[in-house]
């Protein structure tokens, strides 16, 4: 059953259509401002977070600095041993553990000399963690794959031969043949290895040239579930660093936390700026409601004198504010989708995150806030209307 007070409010809005519409436009702008700014901030956050989280599921275990006891000899190597690797595997459980050999050395391609990292990995592991954009992965003993940057800089092609090691007249330098070129990883290395500037060879070739067959420079643990990060780190720490610190365990989560919190402050800040427009909207709604009350003083007087309760008068004016709010919120919501999408696409250049719940929630959120602002702005005018003295109100012209 339709409420007559709602009808009265609706008719009043319709009677003063232009004025009501103008007041609602304030709400439209407010809703659009909050929604699009909120979405912009969130999209930015989501994108940056996503870029940073590639690689967050990786725990890097590296040897700690060796500190010898006074009097005892400093051990010749500080690599991760086979025993430690086994402990790491035990601690890591179902997660994949990949030992990596690494050294920094000179190499020559034709007449060009260069310097970079050489990684030695099990060919099976290479397949699992690296993306070859061109060519194949390592199959033969002296196959190598190279990073995107190094390939570009030295103009490497599939089949190019690279001489590895410091030039030495008395010894022929070993040669590897490029069989694949990796996709560019950029800042976010998804495999925990900075491969852009690296030459990757098989572990057997690596040890035949650089030694260290049962020792590794780094062990990466690839987590299946990122939420187990701390637990796995603790397990490794407990198992390997039993007696003293022999390995260092690190991940990139702290980096994400700090970037995220910065971005979230920025989002809050731009949201606060957006809210100012709603404050302006609130003033205009308040103004229109006060006008509506003062124009209808005599009508209020009639209503009160023939037995309308104060609460019913309040309800009538709150409905009116609510109707203005609904108009503003609905138009604002629709426009938020259009404007928000354009702003996000233009400023971030990527709308992949736009329709995610975290982002799109700003539209109903903005609409709700717009409506609440409207109703709050109508509270005082409604209260004033209901507290008019019926005799004075009737006398008003």
């Amino acid at each position: 059953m339709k409420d007559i007070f709602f009808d009265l409010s609706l008719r009043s809005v319709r009677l003063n259509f232009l004025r009501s519409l103008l007041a609602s436009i304030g709400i439209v702008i407010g809703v659009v401002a909050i929604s699009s700014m909120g979405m912009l901030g969130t999209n930015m956050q989501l994108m940056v977070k996503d870029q940073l989280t590639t690689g967050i599921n990786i725990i890097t275990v590296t040897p700690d600095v060796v500190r010898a006891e006074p009097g005892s000899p400093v051990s010749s190597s500080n690599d991760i041993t086979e025993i430690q690797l086994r402990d790491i595997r035990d601690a890591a459980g179902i997660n994949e553990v990949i030992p990596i050999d690494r050294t920094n050395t000179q190499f020559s391609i034709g007449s060009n000399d260069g310097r970079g990292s050489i990684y030695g990995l099990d060919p099976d592991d290479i397949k699992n963690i690296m993306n070859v954009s061109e060519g194949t992965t390592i199959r033969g003993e002296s196959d190598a794959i190279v990073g995107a940057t190094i390939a570009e800089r030295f103009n490497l092609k599939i089949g190019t031969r690279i001489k590895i090691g410091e030039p030495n007249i008395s010894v022929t330098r070993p040669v590897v043949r490029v069989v694949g070129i990796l996709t560019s990883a950029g800042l976010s290395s998804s495999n925990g290895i900075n491969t852009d500037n690296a030459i990757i060879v098989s572990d057997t070739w690596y040890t035949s040239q650089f030694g260290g067959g049962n020792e590794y420079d780094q062990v990466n643990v690839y987590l299946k579930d990122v939420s187990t990060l701390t637990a796995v780190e603790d397990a490794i720490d407990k198992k390997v660093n039993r007696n003293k610190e022999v390995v260092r365990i690190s991940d990139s989560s702290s980096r994400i936390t700090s970037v995220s919190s910065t971005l979230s402050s920025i989002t809050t800040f731009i949201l606060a700026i957006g809210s100012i427009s709603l404050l302006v909207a609130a003033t205009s709604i308040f103004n229109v409601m006060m006008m509506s009350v003062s124009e209808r003083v005599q009508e209020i007087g009639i209503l009160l004198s023939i037995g309308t309760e104060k609460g019913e008068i309040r309800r009538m004016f709150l409905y009116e504010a609510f109707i203005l709010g609904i108009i503003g919120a609905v138009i604002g919501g629709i426009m938020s989708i259009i404007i928000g999408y354009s702003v996000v696409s233009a400023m971030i250049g990527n709308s992949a995150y736009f329709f995610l719940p975290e982002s799109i929630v700003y539209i109903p959120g903005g609409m709700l806030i717009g409506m609440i602002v409207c109703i709050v702005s109508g509270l005082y005018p409604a209260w004033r209307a209901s507290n008019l003295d019926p005799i004075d109100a009737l006398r008003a012209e």
Partner: protein
Amino acid sequence: MNNTPLIRLTDVSKVYHLESGDFTALNHISLDINEGEFVALMGPSGSGKSTMMNQLGILDVPTTGGIFIAGKNVAGMTNLERTHMRRDVIGYIFQKFYLIPLLSAYENVEYPLILKYKKRDTTGRASAVLKSVGFDEELSTHRPSQLSGGQQQRVAIARALVNDPKILLCDEPTGNLDRKTGFQIMDILVNLNKKGKTVILVTHDPKIADYAHRTIQLEDGRIAGS
């Protein structure tokens, strides 16, 4: 029928505190009006007629003295109780009709029913009452501004009657109407009085006052004669 009057004013005074000093609009008035009476209130401007009507219509409370309507002391009631009494016991008919401009003729009559029963009228009572005061049914969807004065006053009377009040308070109901229409409206009021409504009427017009059983003359806030 019991002996308690429907309306009893005992030593009622109403004093307005103005910047120029206190103004006594009603000065120690005592008055009984019985159920079924037709009373005319007359008097020059400023004699206290409007103040008296506001008191009888419980739109206001006296400064001193007591007003009892249907046995209840108005001064002792809460705001909400007074509102409900205005809705259920009293029907108001004004010189300027005071219909609700945003509602149709029918809705204006239905409105007090909605106030009382908190839902739209499905009993047909609003239409029936409109018909009983001689309102043209075809005009029932018209807004007040589209109606003639006589039609508007008929709607106003229907609105006053629809909750079946005991008392009809008429503040110069014919003041804005031509003579002929004015007498038609008076005929309706006389008829209602015959059916048992207590009618209290404010007027300047002695011819209109002649319809009443009793005329009360007010002067300077006092009853000068009745």
